[in-house]
């Protein structure tokens, strides 16, 4: 078992004919992901990936023809609002948006649209989701995680790879690893992921990788206290980050008095969460 994606996932790739789209689609397919279709406006009718995957002009047609049940979005930021809304409008159950640099206003609108939709949006600015051995949707390197019972959820990309890699080094496997994205406005936060992992029978422990900015870790700490029975191990990046400076991720900024790493770490500790000092320590805490 796993959360979000598994062997049954029939993946659509929006932006499949772009450079990034093609490259990562190849890697996903090589991993064993069942990519059923691609969408690129005005490239409908073409075939990609050894002429095996059909490209459609619209998500609606792609879903009608291929019964896709999840979509990875790899389009440039300026087209992302249209692509995400298109996928929501077509009632796809899951969207994983890799695209980075989407204007905040576009995401605020998408969040409002999501309120009346059943679709789950992961990202944007997410490295994707991987259920080792079953399905990889996004750009997380497939080789760095092995199947297992630890759920991983993170706002970061390469930092998560570090953790997965360290876990693999200690032969600790992963049920599903979800990158929720480094932007300030994202589709799904920690709490929803924690709740899914709590309900997933094959996840025994959860690793949460947070960072400065926002209140998502603070809310997660509350949630863990009241709702979680499974142990959570956390790591928070940005202890040394100065106030008011955006640290790469659009969401990684200490604004005024909120969002410091120290505060997040303290709240997690109060919630009974083991907090790792170094990412490499995580395997030892598991």
């Amino acid at each position, binding site marked *: 078992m796993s959360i979000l994606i598994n062997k049954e996932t029939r993946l659509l790739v929006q932006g499949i004919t772009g450079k990034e789209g093609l490259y990562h689609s190849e890697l996903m397919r090589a991993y064993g992901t069942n990519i059923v279709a691609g969408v690129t406006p005005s490239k409908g009718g073409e075939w990609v990936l050894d002429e095996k995957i059909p490209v459609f002009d619209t998500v609606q047609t792609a879903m009608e023809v291929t019964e896709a049940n999840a979509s990875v979005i790899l389009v440039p930021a300026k087209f992302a609002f249209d692509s995400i809304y298109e996928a929501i409008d077509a009632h796809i159950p899951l969207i994983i948006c890799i695209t980075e640099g989407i204007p905040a206003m576009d995401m605020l609108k998408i*969040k*409002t649209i999501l309120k009346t939709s059943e679709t789950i949006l992961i990202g944007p600015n997410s490295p994707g989701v991987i259920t080792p051995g079953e399905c990889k949707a996004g750009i997380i390197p497939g080789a*760095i995680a092995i199947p297992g019972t630890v759920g991983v959820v993170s706002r970061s990309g390469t930092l*998560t790879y*570090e953790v997965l890699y360290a876990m693999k080094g200690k032969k600790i496997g992963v049920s599903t690893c979800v990158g929720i994205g480094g932007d*300030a406005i994202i589709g799904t936060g920690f709490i929803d992921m924690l709740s899914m992992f709590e309900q997933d029978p094959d996840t025994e422990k959860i690793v949460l990788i947070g960072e400065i900015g926002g209140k998502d870790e603070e809310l997660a700490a509350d949630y863990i206290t009241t709702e979680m029975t499974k142990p959570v191990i956390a790591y928070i990046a940005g202890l*040394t980050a100065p106030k008011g400076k955006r640290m790469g991720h659009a969401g990684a900024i200490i604004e005024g008095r909120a969002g410091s790493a120290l505060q997040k770490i303290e709240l997690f500790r109060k919630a009974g969460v083991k907090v790792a000092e170094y990412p*490499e320590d995580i395997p030892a805490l598991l």
Partner: protein
Amino acid sequence: MKIQEYQAKHIFQKYEIPIPRGQVALNASFVRQIAEDLGDKVVVKAQVLVGGRGKAGGIRLADDPDEAEDIATEMMGMEINGFPVHKVLVEEAVDIKKELYLSIGTDRTNASPVIIASEYGGIDIEDAAEEAPEKITRILIDPLIGLCDFQIRRLAVSIDLPRKHWKKFTQIANALWQIYKNDASLVEINPLVISEQNGLVALDGKMTIDDNALFRHPELADLRDLDMENSFEVEAQKYGITYVHMTGNIGCLVNGAGLAMATMDILKLKGGEPANFLDIGGGASAEKVSSALHILFSDPQVKAVLVNIFGGITRCDEIARGITMALSEHNHIKIPLVVRLIGTNAEEGYKILEKQNLPVAHTFSEAAEKAISLSGVKKK
């Protein structure tokens, strides 16, 4: 992207938000001229992108053009919280009956635009929030519907605004919404003053533009004040590298923002001091790596460099090639470099670096420790 007060006010004016009459000046003699034109007492305001300007003497009243010129001369030589003053804004002095606060920004937790008003204007809104949270009203705005008049009325009631100012207040709030929805992530009037002579006036203005949305507002990109930013940051931006200057002595070159922060944190925890945050992004080319190293090497603070790469999209061999390029261009520079490569083509990367005889590290801690010890050795 933060913009200067005078730039924000220029935008306010476009949206018909009342501001004091005034002009920006690059030198003191022009300040005198502006003061003469304004004809009465003026306020001289240092244009720096940093808070605490008032306390630091960056806002001063001048009774006549002579005094304005003197103040400006003094100010232009100042540094305010580390930022040199290159420009001042000269404005008519406005009589202040009451100072209010009004802003539209983004509420991250609710993923919503939020309009905030307070009758505690003129001070930092977070200070106000601590002193008198009940005096701050926050109303979420549906981004698809926009700000509505009834919401503005609720604010007006909450800050006890006299009725005669409601119409103007509504117009100002609507203007702020227009500015915000055109991709400002924050637009703040603090204080919004009630003046006997002029009614409501935006005495100070602050505005942050969403960098991600600059593609649809090319005119706003021109507002970036390169003067005011750290020169390394400006340089990095040219190459699409995210860089934040710090005060330590170990330069960092990392792929990914989270990993870059973690790298800084680990250096600190192990007793070192990072000189910067640097994220070269995903799938960086050798040229980009070389440019990044070039920036680190030009920083006199930097006594050692830690390269920490987790190859995913990023290929470690490409990174290694970039390092080789930079070292060959900077062969006179003797800054020690610790390199850690994992993931895609890491072995090929290390092979390329063999000739350079660089210290390598395989774990995160090891890399940090080596960099610290090398920076320390050099310091002595």
